């Protein structure tokens, strides 16, 4: 028991764990939509493109999360604008925006940050969550969860049958923008714990194994959140005891869950085939 309780005796550890769990909740709630709507690339692009905002905030000396939030808003608007143009496929448009922003971010970073800070920004530092960060993360997470619950029927209707949505006056592009906005917010929350490079894992990986086990959207969401929670806790302790970065530890735990559930999925499929 001491093994589990000991790290929680420090304030910064407790903040780290709480922050990690908040990020896990926000990401995992949206994970089902990211997986089922094929928005993985979009999630990755968003996470990477906020880098210049973070570096700017670091340089100017205000909270990195505010910098990330500002950049995320710009990126969502930019993608929305680029995908309205004809002649360029959306994924190509996203790719261009994403690579450009990320390169700019790295360039800025190499001018202003030390190697240690670079590591924390790219790969997360769960133990560096400040009290202000925590309040910010809590507010954003509550907002993301509330918004998802309140617009749930619209998110599902427009994902399942966009032409029906359009026919009842519910604009699928508006719904897509809502999802993009929520994704951007979530990315910002998860930056502290898993870092820019691995946010995608927290957005995609919980939903994938959950979809193999459950076929109900609520079931998938509940299972995603549970998996993300477990992985965050595992990653947190690994980070404390083995002195490894928190982001990769959390993501690796998630990946192991994914492998485990794909195994189960394969066995179930095999059994069904044998029965029929």
């Amino acid at each position, binding site marked *: 028991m001491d093994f589990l309780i000991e790290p929680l005796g420090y304030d910064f550890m407790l903040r780290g764990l709480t922050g990690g769990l908040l990020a896990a909740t926000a990401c995992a709630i949206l994970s*089902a939509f990211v997986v*089922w709507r094929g928005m993985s690339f979009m999630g990755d692009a968003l996470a990477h493109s906020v880098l210049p905002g973070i570096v700017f905030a670091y340089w100017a000396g205000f909270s990195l999360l505010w910098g990330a939030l500002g950049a995320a808003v710009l990126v969502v608007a930019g993608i929305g604008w680029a995908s309205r143009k*004809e002649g360029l496929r959306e994924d190509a448009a996203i790719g261009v925006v994403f690579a450009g922003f990320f390169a700019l971010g790295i360039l800025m970073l190499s001018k202003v940050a030390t190697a240690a800070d670079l590591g924390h920004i790219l790969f997360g530092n769960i133990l560096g969550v400040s009290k202000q960060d925590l309040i910010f993360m809590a507010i954003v997470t509550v907002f993301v969860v509330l918004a998802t619950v*309140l*617009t749930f*029927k*619209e998110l*599902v*209707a427009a*994902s*399942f*049958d*966009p*032409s*029906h949505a*359009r*026919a*009842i*006056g*519910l*604009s699928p592009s*508006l719904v897509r923008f809502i999802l993009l906005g929520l994704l951007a917010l979530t990315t910002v929350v998860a930056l502290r714990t898993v870092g820019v490079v691995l946010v995608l894992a927290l957005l995609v990986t919980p939903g994938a194994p959950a*979809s193999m086990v*459950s*076929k*109900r*959207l609520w079931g*998938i969401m509940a299972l995603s959140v549970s998996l993300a929670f477990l992985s965050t806790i595992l990653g947190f302790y690994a980070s404390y005891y083995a002195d490894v970065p928190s982001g990769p530890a959390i993501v690796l735990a998630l990946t192991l869950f994914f492998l485990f559930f794909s195994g189960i999925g394969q066995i179930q499929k095999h059994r069904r085939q044998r029965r029929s």
Partner: protein
Amino acid sequence: MSEVRCESRRRALAYGGRCHLASLAGEPALEVKGVSHRYPAMQDDALSAVNLKIHPGERVALVGPNGAGKSTLIRLILGMETPLAGSVSVFGHSASRCLHRVAVVPQRSSIDWHFPVTVRQVVTMGRYVHLGWFRRPKAEDKEAVDAALEAMEIQDLAERQVGELSGGQQQRVMLARTLAHDADLMLLDEPLNHVDISTQELIFHTLERLTAQGKAVMVSTHDLGVLTVHFSRALFLDKRIIADGPPREVLTPETIAEAYGFEFHKDYAPWTS
């Protein structure tokens, strides 16, 4: 009063805009006046100078080859595309202003069948047009959903995933969603594709019941064999209207040759027997 409220609503806010406009006296369920349309970057018109009126109680088949503009016409009626020329009105009003009165069964290919939703969830989507943002289905919505499930004989499938069902069962779900919508004008885009014979019969039976209640129905189809039995009117479309009238009168070798660009074998004419 509701008239004024509806007028000020923009298209983007139409969802859940609770306008219940009465039909203007003497106006048809659907009127398409001189509608032409062309998609961006295309050489030819998708539709040119289409005129048609459908009255309450009519059951109209929209017939034509692939690319004849059947789906385009349906999209224009729903306000999903804006016509280059001409106008569309539903019960005397612009369709986008009164969405709760028009329901559509889209083509199967436009739907993500693997998305994890149950049959009941999909049929409930037919009620969303009456609910709008943030409102949850009430008792009356649940009753409408149950009635629709029963009418399409899929109560037993209510908790199943739509992706697990057969093509015919999925089409029943789509029609149940339209029934739950409780619209006065129903547009069905190729509902007979990939459908078994019992589902086809159930679909026609349901459409007959609806038109007997005074609703107007338009069905796009490739199947010439069903026209004379199940429709009161057939509309041949190939970018423009080629023929319009009772199926027995318009279903001639000349019409078919004009619409499809080929002639049937002289002995093959099952609909004339």
